[in-house]
């Protein structure tokens, strides 16, 4: 028997559309006031999971609990949940004020209380001057605020945000991201945001839930999913540019740490504990760009040919191909002078390398002492 705990709990949620499974036995606990991001590629089931929590979809099996109350049999409006839709879903023929009041009037909240809450939300979101406009007269960013305002006035126990920034242009997206971060300080509720943009997830969320292939691949803080990805999928999905994956073979161990022979024949001394990794096993070596750099002139390194150079001003990513054919990405500070087609020598920080076995399971390096 479970104890009624505050926060959101998903237990073994399953959903399929006909023969196509969308979610398979998804379980998750969200603490009160926690900011969670559902991150995954399209078709990973992240939006479906959000809609099941909201009550807009019904799970085939499994339970949804909020603050100790089982909510999955309840109607969407009875769950104490507010949602900000991807396309805002504002009522086009109602003014901003009416949009925000609609749910409260339906829930029979007293009139002066409605007025008070709308004034407060309008104040927070700086839309006080727009209360008598209709959504069609507003810009995308303003509509977004109204949609958030409509959620705030309900004083929900849980906020759901479906791709909240995807309809905004780049400049507005950055500002709204800051505003969302401020929003979570102001509201006394947990937030769950669906996104396919890892930068959003990394900057906003306390914990990231990474979904793919109908299942949760990893739940962790942004630092955890970046530094210790649970499997090869997470390793590739989180990080921009992504972790490079080099094919290799376990060559042996030295000092309890794995030695890897890359396809190029080059030996790499890793900091991954040898336990469980047998010599001769084919594996992939995962390397973040910051652990690969150009060798200083006159020093040796792994031979590679530069294919693409991405100059971001303060730093430069160098996409190169090793002699054995594997793609690798190096990071250099500053603007750099290397050009596509150049031959380069790369220094690989083997002690930062991750190892992924054929099943995708991850072996991480021991922290540097």
């Amino acid at each position, binding site marked *: 028997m479970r104890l009624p705990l505050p926060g959101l709990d998903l237990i073994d949620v399953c959903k399929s559309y006909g023969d196509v499974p969308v979610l398979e036995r998804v379980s998750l606990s969200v603490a009160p006031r926690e900011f969670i991001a559902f991150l995954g590629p399209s078709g990973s089931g992240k939006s479906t999971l959000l809609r099941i929590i*909201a*009550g*807009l979809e019904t799970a085939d099996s499994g339970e949804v609990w909020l603050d100790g109350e089982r909510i999955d049999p309840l*109607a*969407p*409006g*009875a769950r104490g*949940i*507010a*949602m900000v*839709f*991807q*396309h805002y*879903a*504002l*009522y*086009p*023929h*109602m003014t901003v004020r009416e949009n925000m009041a*609609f*749910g409260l009037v*339906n*829930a029979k909240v007293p009139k002066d209380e409605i007025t008070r809450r709308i004034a407060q939300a309008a104040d927070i979101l700086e839309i006080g001057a727009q209360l008598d406009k*209709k959504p*069609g*007269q507003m810009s995308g960013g303003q509509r977004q605020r109204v949609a958030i305002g*409509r959620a705030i006035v309900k004083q929900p126990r849980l906020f759901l945000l479906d791709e909240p920034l995807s309809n905004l242009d780049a400049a507005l997206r950055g500002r709204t991201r800051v505003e969302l971060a401020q929003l979570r300080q102001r509201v006394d509720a947990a937030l769950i945001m669906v996104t396919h943009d890892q930068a959003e997830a990394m900057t906003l969320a306390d914990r990231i839930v990474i979904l793919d292939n109908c299942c949760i691949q990893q739940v962790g803080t942004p630092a955890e999913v970046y530094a210790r990805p649970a499997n090869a999928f997470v390793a590739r999905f989180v990080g921009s540019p992504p972790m490079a994956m080099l094919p290799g073979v376990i060559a042996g161990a030295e000092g309890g740490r794995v030695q890897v022979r890359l396809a190029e024949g080059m030996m790499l001394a890793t900091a991954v504990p040898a336990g469980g990794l047998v010599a001769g096993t084919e594996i992939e070596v995962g390397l973040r760009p910051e652990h690969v750099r150009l060798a200083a002139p006159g020093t040796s390194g792994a031979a590679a040919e530069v294919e693409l150079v991405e100059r971001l001003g303060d730093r430069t990513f160098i996409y190169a191909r090793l002699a054995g054919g594997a793609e690798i990405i190096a990071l250099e500070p500053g603007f750099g002078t290397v050009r596509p087609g150049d031959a380069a020598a790369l220094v690989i920080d083997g002690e930062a390398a991750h190892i992924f076995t054929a099943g995708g399971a991850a072996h991480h390096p021991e922290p540097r002492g």
Partner: protein
Amino acid sequence: MNAALRDRLVGYAFVGPFLLVYAAVMVVPLIMGLVISLHRADLFGRREWVGLANYSEALGDPVLHQALGNTAMLALLIVPPLTGLALLLALALNRPGRFAAVLRGVFFSSLVLSVTIVTLIWRFILTPDAGLIAEGLAATGRAPIPFLSDPDLVIPAIAVTTLWWSLGFPVMLILAGLQQVPGDIYEAAALDVANRWTVLRRITLPAIRRTLLLVVMLQTAAQLQLFGQAQLLTGGGPGGASRTIVLYIFEVSFGRWELGYATAIAELLFGMILALTLVQYWLVTRHEEPRA
């Protein structure tokens, strides 16, 4: 030739054929009708200028006044119930699934029947002489009702016939309007604790008000020109109790050969329909802000 000019010419070339036909069958006859209405004219081409005499005759014509009353009553008995019924049916049929699809087809099917078939069917239903309703009444021991020869019942009888015949198209229009409403608004309403009545009143109806306006405007224009059903079911009888304006125009022009007078009545009807349609449009749209 610069590109902008060429684009314009190409555009005119595309709409040109339509404009030519439109002018030939709509604009020219409208103007010719205006001219004819100022003459005493017959079908053989005899024209005698009479100025506004036809129009002043129309103002004092008791038969026309009766026809105007009949037509207005028919429009009142048809347009509001038709719009309401079509809305109810469209709301009921606006769902996925084979059953709803079949029913959508059924309700649309009466529309493809010609007025001849429709009046034939309804004659079988309405006639006191072994008609469907008469048989039903007889089975319960009651006397048949002479729908088509009782001056008080003939207008409602034609109205019901027309309702049955005309229902399909408004249902389709409203269904199309309903399917334009974005689904996420309904999801937002579900999270906003809106019950079905609130959703209908505050979300659905405002969202399709332009479609409803279109239905009302089209049907008003159509029913003010009601002709076939009256002509075929009753011939305008008994005693002119079901004579409509268009039926009267038909009688005057092809029965009495007074083409000038008939045309004058037709122009008056045209002006009336135009005015009514504009008033309806203004009533519905006056509070709307320009669309972004």
